């Protein structure tokens, strides 16, 4: 049975698309047939993060309108046979996505895929609403910062009231993914800690992604950061995917790295 996972946050710039790309790729690399759907109509960016921007021919809105079929529209990832991308449209028409249209496309995708990862746009407008409406599970991406935490709580409220599952009296499984975490600043009392954010949002923690130079490096190249297996962020995302699949593994990268004498002297990172 296909599972629909929405990656959402409310606030922009916290790492939804980076996370969608990483989790989708991680699931595909573990053998699950996965499609990542970009719901950010008008501001498509998943294609760039996945490195397939030059292969976009048709998009989500074309598919909904019947201008193209699934085979023509889905872009197959070059790194994994199990991974496909459904790009958002660049149209400025805000009403291009409809509940019926999205439901029809998702139902068609469910026939062939194990996981459907919905990359939500920021805000609480139509795109964000539709991205979460059909979800079975949610990954709430949060930065350890006041406005992001508040917006995440707002999204949790919407998930439990304005979704198909909520309307049917069922629950969406909620997961907290804390990104751009800086353990050094937490130790100095300058940044909210993992447990602070857990206390406030009180949902299960899926993972903590450290603030990392690897993320920009990966997006510059159009490679999901999870493919960078040597990087801290890549490993943290891999752990998160394992937990999403039900494995219980300890959290890493929560402590500041102790600097050695040489690092102290020369200020290297």
């Amino acid at each position, binding site marked *: 049975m296909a599972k629909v996972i929405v990656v959402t946050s409310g606030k922009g710039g916290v790492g939804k698309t980076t996370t969608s790309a990483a989790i989708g790729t991680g699931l595909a690399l573990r053998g699950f047939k996965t499609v990542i759907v970009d719901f950010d109509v008008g501001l498509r960016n998943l294609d760039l993060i996945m490195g397939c921007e030059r292969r976009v021919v048709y998009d989500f809105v074309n598919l909904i309108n019947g201008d193209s079929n699934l085979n023509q529209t889905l872009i197959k990832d070059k790194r994994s046979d199990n991974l496909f991308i459904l790009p958002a449209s660049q149209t400025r028409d805000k009403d291009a996505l409809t509940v019926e249209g999205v439901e029809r496309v998702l139902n068609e995708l469910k026939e062939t895929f194990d996981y459907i990862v919905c990359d939500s746009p920021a805000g609480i407008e139509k795109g964000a609403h539709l991205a979460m409406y059909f979800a079975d599970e949610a990954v709430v991406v949060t930065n350890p*910062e*006041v406005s992001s*935490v*508040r917006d995440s*709580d*707002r999204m949790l*409220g919407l998930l439990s*009231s304005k979704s198909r599952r909520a309307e049917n009296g069922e629950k969406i499984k909620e997961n907290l993914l804390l990104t751009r975490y800086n353990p050094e600043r*937490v130790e*100095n*009392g*300058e*940044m*909210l*800690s993992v447990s*602070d954010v857990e*206390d*406030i949002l009180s949902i299960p923690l899926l993972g903590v992604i450290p603030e990392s130079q690897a993320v920009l490096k990966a997006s510059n190249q159009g490679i999901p950061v999870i493919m960078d297996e040597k990087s801290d962020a890549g490993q943290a995302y891999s752990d998160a995917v394992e937990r999403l699949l039900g494995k219980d593994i300890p959290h890493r990268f929560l402590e500041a790295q102790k600097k050695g004498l040489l690092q102290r002297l020369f200020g290297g990172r």
Partner: protein
Amino acid sequence: MSIFDYFRDRKKSTPASIAKERLQIIVAHERGQRNQPDYLPQLQQEIIDVISKYVPIDREQVHVALDNQDDCSILELNITLPERP
């Protein structure tokens, strides 16, 4: 950790703890509002309109709250009337 850090750490409020405290308050407040039915603000307005037909009252002196206890909802209405001249 130097001796100065030790003294600094003894200060109660770090930027992070202030952030946490502010968030806990605003999130609790917003959750309370989220759970109230949509008609509550309008109900409050209409009650104020009716009462002010008879008694001059201050908008701030009317409190409407809906409490849910198990399977029973309690609508609490609290109006402070002005002191008699």
